[in-house]
């Protein structure tokens, strides 16, 4: 981009350059995991035997969701990759609530996220423990709430329901996989690009120094970190290193909040989730996740 601009003799304003740099960095960071997520989704939908995943899960709803929330341990995919995978799980027969449980827990308890968080913070101030336990608790609580909804299908967008109801073509698994890859990519990629662009735009518009000045206040430090996580939309696999330099300025609870809230809710994720869930569901989910994340941070601040 810079080479093209310099070659043409045309100079972009600094803010536009920052916007492009930030947006492209989010896309580059997320793209491999989105593709990996789509591939895993294809494996789940096309290649796994019918009922394979269900076979190992308990029948009790709470225990079943608890088991599903641990799936992420085996899947080194960050939050954006989990969106297509979640869609695949629903197509494969999981309830919407179960799929939401997986969606929220997986990016936090995936092995890469746990390792990088440990590398960044060790066991200092209980941040790592708060992230894992808090992430699992949030996923299961939100999953439980939505399991109470009388009409699971009403939680989903009409376009995704239509996608799910598409008749299967009597074709080979290979053709089905290619077809699924094309369709999932067409649904997810635009959302990723739009989300990345919005994340970049907000970062350019809101100076980071504004957020940092709030770092020492028990309440505002947590709100600032939630806002930062929402805006920055950084991948859960590397977010611990991103936030590490803030650890000396912000209270440890606010760091924990950033690490549980960010992988679940941010501008990029909302854009991608909008392909699957209704706006009302996303608003409800965001409110509950925000309150639970704040509570995790406040408890860490009080106890640690």
């Amino acid at each position, binding site marked *: 981009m810079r080479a093209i601009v310099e070659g043409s003799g045309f100079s972009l304003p600094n803010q536009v350059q920052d916007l492009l740099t930030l947006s492209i960095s989010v896309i580059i960071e997320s793209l491999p995991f989105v593709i990996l997520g789509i591939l895993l989704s294809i494996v789940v939908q096309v290649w796994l035997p*019918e009922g394979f995943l269900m076979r190992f899960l308990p029948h009790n709803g709470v225990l079943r969701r608890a088991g599903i929330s641990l799936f992420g341990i085996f899947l080194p995919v960050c939050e954006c990759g989990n969106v297509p995978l979640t869609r695949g799980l*629903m*197509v*494969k*027969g*999981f*309830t*919407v*609530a179960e*799929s939401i449980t997986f969606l929220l827990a997986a990016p936090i308890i995936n092995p890469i996220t746990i390792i990088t968080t440990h590398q960044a913070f060790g066991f*200092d*101030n209980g941040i790592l423990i708060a992230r894992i336990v808090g992430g699992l608790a949030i996923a299961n*609580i939100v999953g439980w*709430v939505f*399991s*109470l*909804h*009388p*009409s*699971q*299908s009403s939680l*989903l967008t009409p376009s995704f329901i239509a996608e*799910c*109801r*598409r*008749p*299967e073509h009597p074709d080979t698994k290979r053709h089905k996989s290619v077809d699924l890859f094309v369709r999932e990519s067409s649904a997810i990629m635009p959302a990723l690009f739009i989300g990345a662009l919005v994340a970049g735009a907000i970062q350019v518009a809101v100076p980071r120094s504004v957020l940092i000045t709030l*770092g*020492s*206040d*028990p*309440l505002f*430090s947590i709100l600032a970190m939630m806002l930062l996580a929402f805006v920055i939309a950084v991948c859960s696999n590397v977010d611990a290193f991103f936030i590490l330099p803030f650890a*000396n*300025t912000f*209270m*440890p*609870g606010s760091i924990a909040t950033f690490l549980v809230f960010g992988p679940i809710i941010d501008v990029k994720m909302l854009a991608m989730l909008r392909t699957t869930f209704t706006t009302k569901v996303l608003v*409800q989910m965001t*409110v*509950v996740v925000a*309150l*639970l994340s*704040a*509570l995790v941070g*406040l*408890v860490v*601040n*009080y106890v*640690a």
Partner: protein
Amino acid sequence: MRPIFTEDARPRSAARFTRTLTALIVVLAVLCGLFVGLGYLQGPKLSKGTVDTDAVVGQSGQQLRLFVNQVVAPVNAKQVTITPNVAHKVTSQGGLIAVQFDARLKYRTDYHVRVSGVTSVDRGTPSTLEYSFTTGSPNIYYLDRGSPNDRIMRARLDASPPTVVYSTRRIQDFALLEGALAVVTLSEHNESSLDLVSLSDGAVEHVALPNHVVIQKVDAAAGSSTFGFTLTSTGDSIRPPYSSTLFTLDLSGSHTIKPVVGLNGKPLLVLDWEYMPDGSSLLALTHDRSLFMVDPKTPGSVLPLGQFNELGSISRDGKIATVSDAFGLISLKLDNLRQERLVPSPFDEGEPYLGLTEYLPGGERVEKLLSIEPDGIRFASTVALDNGKKSQVLYRTPNDDGSIQNFSVSPNGQYVAVEVIPNVTTSMSDGYYYDSHSTSTTTVFVDIDSGNVVKSVEGFDLSW
């Protein structure tokens, strides 16, 4: 038809979902409000503290770093109390409070640090931070000569047994450096060779020296990567190339020896020399009995300090050197060159002669005193603590059968290591042509406050 997402088979009502969701949000909001209130009432909390428990004993100016869970308002020294009391400075930035100890701390001692009135930057509820730590017992090194090999030993001032750090034939002398030992060995022809021994992996690097020389007076500042020594040519040449010529070697540089030059630009020929405690410069007493302060790394940085017969010790704070002239010992203040003749304070054992003297951080002196025995023939040697009014015995050999050879005060002034021959009548020399010692030489560690012997090791040439 392909499988699609599953609808829960159990009947649900939309109202129940809405009620549950609303109740959950309300409960979470109340819990958040409760913890916000508790957070404001709690004030800043200590997340962790870090301090190098060995370094605080060996060096002054070390820091205890207290990490607070939020950015705090500036903290001053009056808010910090340390038990036992230690002079200190305090700085704070962000969520970090740094307590700097002006003096070295005591070995194996519990310290308690209390910081009161700590508030966040918005001056919320003040809180008191408390942190305790126990200082370490840093390694000490000494030379233990034996057969077939001599050994450089590492020990601590606790009950743990010493370990061998390096072993080879005929070790003449050594110096402790940062991460390494400089080891001087004697050949069968009584010529010196110099090796650098890594303390981490034991790797040995040989240092090139001029042919047919002997190394003497090896010294290094604590924790330094530089050490020095004198080179003297062996043989019977009328004009030998080296005659107590002072050299240094910097491990952080090219590992080649470099002469220390004097005011005339020529290498210094010294009777004695010693590094200043911080290693930045050295004191050198030249053959013409001139005392200089020299910075070996800065050409031309040579400061004349006066004419003296001998160079004794330098206080750990680097402010006072003990020297001697024809009439006895003198304390020389290095900042203004004021001299004060040293005489021992009244001593119960009679009128002693004053020997080696070393200043403690508080201004007291540890002295080697020689007294004539009642038989009028023998001398009794004693290490005493002189507070300016009275000298009291710190250590003497049992029945005064032995002889005190040397002593060295620990960097923090808590212990004195006394090099003794326990019984002079049975003493035998190890037969080394240079730096010979009695085979029975023992180093005894004495607590200066109590006068108690806390440890003794067989060997000498102690490096703290």
